[in-house]
């Protein structure tokens, strides 16, 4: 959303290396490449978040002993990077035609110092915010698939952000539908 853009490339299900293959399901790998510099500890933890989120939705048991690789390249970062990555990942999974249990979308909420909730903050707003919460919301029943917070907030504030994120998820899923429709209507 906005100026943040992430390019996602999905490869798979493909032949997996013997050391990496799992006997009963597909092995998912996520690589996140920052715009500048080499991937560091921050990218690693984000990769882990993305990987476990994708593992929960991709029906890996249908493709045992294969490898699915997801490569994300950050083109520009103007705030809400993690949810942009989440959305890109989901669309890539959709585009590749992999069997998914549910769709998901990423929403970032910034909690301003005065208590107002801002959705999809820009880099400037993220800096000023007291806390930033990122959620991955599943399309079935709007359950929380992934949650991560930066900064501290009270429990009620978290619940409010979660509710706001769930509402925003509807808009994003509509966008998914429109994009897919456009792609396949040619």
């Amino acid at each position: 959303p906005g100026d943040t853009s992430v390019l996602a490339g999905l490869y798979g299900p493909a032949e997996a290396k013997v050391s990496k293959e799992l006997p009963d399901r597909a092995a998912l790998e996520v690589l996140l490449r920052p715009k500048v510099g080499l991937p560091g500890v921050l990218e690693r933890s984000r990769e882990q978040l993305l990987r476990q989120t994708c593992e929960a939705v991709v029906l890996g048991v249908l493709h045992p002993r294969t490898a699915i690789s997801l490569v994300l390249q950050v083109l520009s970062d103007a705030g809400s990077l993690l949810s942009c990555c989440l959305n890109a990942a989901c669309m890539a999974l959709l585009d590749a035609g992999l069997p998914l249990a549910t769709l998901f979308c990423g929403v970032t909420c910034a909690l301003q110092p005065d208590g107002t909730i801002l959705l999809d903050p820009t880099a400037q707003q993220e800096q000023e915010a007291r806390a930033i919460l990122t959620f991955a919301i599943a399309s079935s029943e709007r359950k929380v698939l992934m949650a991560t917070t930066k900064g501290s907030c009270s429990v009620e504030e978290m619940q409010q952000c979660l509710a706001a994120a769930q509402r925003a998820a509807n808009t994003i899923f509509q966008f998914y539908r429109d994009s897919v429709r456009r792609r396949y209507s040619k």
Partner: protein
Amino acid sequence: RTVEPLEYYRRFLKENCRPDGRELGEFRTTTVNIGKCLCSITTADGSALVKLGNTTVICGVKAELAAPAVDSANKGYIVPNVELPSLCAERFRSGPPGEEAQAASQFIADVIENSQMIVKEDLCIANGKLAWVLYCDIICLDYDGNLLDASVFALLAALKNVQLPLVMINEETGLSEVNLKQKNPLIIRKHPVATSFAIFDDTLLIVDPTAEEEDLATGTVTIVTDEEGRLCSVHKPGGSPLTGAKLQDCITRAITRQKEVKKLIDKVIKSITPK
């Protein structure tokens, strides 16, 4: 148990308990050793050993002097590093830190930052010239699940144990003088405590999972709270979806746990202070 671990577990979960006899909401016995006398690291400025059942984590804090960064001249640094050496569990190979260790290091760094446990301005000695750098090395000695809880606990205990010598800058020479005889404890503002849950079959939540339970679980949630009941971090890396209500249950349990842990730390610190 070896052939059908999931079925074995399901039978226990139906009765609302676990193979090691615990309730779903019960933690393993937590023991903590702080300080040079009880703990093994004598070269570190602060150290703590935490045992959460079988999971053993040791944390050593070393304080060094460095020049602060140009853009934040009044801030020191805290550098956490989590290591999972191959001796702690058979699935970790030796070599560069794996994804789990790096993700854990990032998590600890985030907790320190989010909870404002140590305010970086407190670590500054002279604006723009000298500041403390705290290297926190967290090493897992035995991995039986719930690494994040034990690491946060060990870090907190070790930091409470750190004594920083007084450093003065000699005006004429511009060099620093370290006064080893006068030591002040570190100012710790908040006491964050992590509580981890494992999700089974999209519905059941169990607290403090062992390594076996973590493998069988369909997802994990870690919640870090401080003493005011504020959420410092909610970490749910994927796994089965949870409703908001379930998340709320986890948070309430985490707040109770936070109070227990805080009492434990205070008790241990009081028992070693006279020395």
